Each structure stands twice: as C-alpha cells, then as structure tokens.
C-alpha cells in the first residue's frame, strides 16, 4: 500500500480552504456583486457580536433590577424598553421578555426551533444551547438537564421552560444571592453568569469577606 506523503510544502500554490469556506466565499462574492451585501457591514456585525455584546450586558440588566425596584418593575413589565434604557436593543427588532426566578419558580430558556437567543443581552449562544440534545431534552426533562449543569433543584420548585422564537427572546432574572446587601451594581453584576440568565445556573455567591 502506498502512503501519500504529508502535505508537500514545496507546493507552489496557496493552501486550498475547506469546501464550506469556498462555498461561503462564493455566496459572499455573489451577494456583494449584486449589491445585496456590503462587506464592511458584515465585518462590523461580526465584530459587534464577537467583541461588543455578551453576557456582561445581561448582567448589568439583572444587577439593576436587583438594586432598583422601579427598574425591576419596568423590566418585568416591558423588558424590551427596560433593556433599551441601558443601551442594549434588538439586532432584528425582536421582543424581549424577562422571567424572574423566585423561591418557588425556576425559569429556563430554550429555542426548540433553532437557536433564537437574546443577542443584545447575552451575545452569541454557547454550542450546547444550539445542540439538538439540549433543545429536545430540556423540554421533556428540564430537572434532569439542569442537574447535569450541576444545579440540583428541589422537587418543590416549579420549573418553567420558555421556548424562544424569532420574535420573542427570554432573559432569566436569577435570584439575588444572600449576603450581597453591601454590593453596588458593579459588584452585583460580577455575580451574574451567562448560565444564570439562561436558567442552567444560579448567580454566584459573593466571596466571603
């Protein structure tokens, strides 16, 4: 059996990208040629999603709702507007809904259709949020799935599963941890994890002083 040599580095030509990369280039060339896409706008969007938006935005929203009862009421009443107050607004005009955890209710978010996600407050979804396994199982057996994230919820806590759509995106407002009375909003926001705003985690406990 003859074995092909490893990549020959005396190759005169440029390394060929993968088939998907070539197909993506073909789409872009076609759309730019037709004037449907501005490459600068694409770069700007990718840069925004990669660098400017992420769970720190959502953490600010949650920290504000923990420390300002009026803001909390506005957030639960009209989350789109309350989130926009902090400068975060929908990328495609989607509607935001905030669902608050309590002693009795724990909320968790999924998108069973694809991967609809509250981009302005959480950025891009993690791979597991996009996986068919999570999308199917969290609806059927939320308690078991949440437990796999390390969060054992007692049986007397009701779990509500919210299915995002292209039009409606949910943000979970986790419970404020005990012992955080002295923290300001910045300190509170540091306790708010991405997973706590999806519902597969809780806010972190403050470090014991």
């Amino acid at each position, binding site marked *: 059996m003859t074995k092909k040599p490893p990549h020959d580095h005396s*190759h*005169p*030509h*440029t*390394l*060929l*990208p*993968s088939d*998907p*990369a*070539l*197909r*993506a*280039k*073909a*789409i*872009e*060339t*076609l*759309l730019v*040629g*037709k004037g*449907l*896409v*501005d490459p600068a*706008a*694409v*770069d700007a*969007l*990718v840069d925004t*999603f*990669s660098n400017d938006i992420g769970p720190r935005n959502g953490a600010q929203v949650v920290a504000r709702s923990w420390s300002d009862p009026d803001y909390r009421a506005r957030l639960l009443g009209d989350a789109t507007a309350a989130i926009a107050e902090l400068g975060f607004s929908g*990328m*495609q*005009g*989607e509607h935001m809904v905030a669902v608050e955890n309590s002693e009795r209710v724990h909320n968790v978010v999924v998108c069973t*259709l*694809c*991967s*609809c996600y509250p981009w302005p407050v959480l*950025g891009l979804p*993690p*791979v*597991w*949020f*996009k*996986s*068919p*396994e*999570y999308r199917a*199982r969290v609806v059927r057996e939320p308690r078991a*799935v949440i437990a*796999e*994230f390390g969060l054992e919820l007692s049986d007397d806590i009701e779990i509500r599963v919210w299915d995002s*759509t*292209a*039009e409606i995106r949910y943000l979970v407002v986790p419970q404020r941890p005990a012992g955080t009375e002295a923290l300001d909003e910045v300190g509170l926001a540091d306790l708010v994890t991405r*997973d706590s705003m999806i519902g*597969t*985690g809780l806010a972190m406990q403050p470090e014991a002083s």
Partner: protein
Amino acid sequence: MPPPTEPERPFVEPWHAQIFGMTHALAAAGSFTWPDWASHFGEALKLALNAGGPTDGSDYYDVWLVALETFLIEQDLADRDSLDDLRAAWTDAYLSTPHGAPVELSSKALSGA
C-alpha cells in the same frame, strides 16, 4: 450535557463568522425577515438531525451554510449555477495563486456571476 463553564470562542472558523454576518446583514438590509430565515433554518436543522446528524450541535454552521444557500435560492437572491461557478472560480484562484500572494478572482469569474 457537557459542563458549560468554559468560555467559548464566538466563531471557530472564519467562514462561520462570514455566513453569520452575511445572514444578519441581509436581514438588517431588508432582503428577508429574520423569522422567515429562522423558520427555514429550523427546518434544515430538523432534517439534518433526522438524517442521522450529530446531537451535540457540532454541525450547526454546516447546516446554516446549506440552509443559507437554499434559502437565498428560494428567495430569488441567488441561483445554484452562479454559486457553483463562483465556488469553482475560487478553487481555481487558490490553486493558481502562488503561495503568499493575495488570492483574487479573475475579472472573468466576477463578471460571470
């Protein structure tokens, strides 16, 4: 489910960012609505899964790419022949460009699009 605490890179491959950015840019420019795209993409994800695809989300952008091609064709924003021709033209360009030089399409390939 895997432990989810590791920070993730937003896009693993540059082309993931490219198709994600293009899809958002097209919706933002009004070429189609996001709900229409989401519905098409959701259907493609379901088909991929039913065809025996992975359940861990590792084929997410592969499915996105194929769905974007078929959606653009369905919406009359692209056609299969042009996509195939341009893919072939990019392949030729890479194979004929000396290592280190910028890879560009010939004006012939561009005007044919």
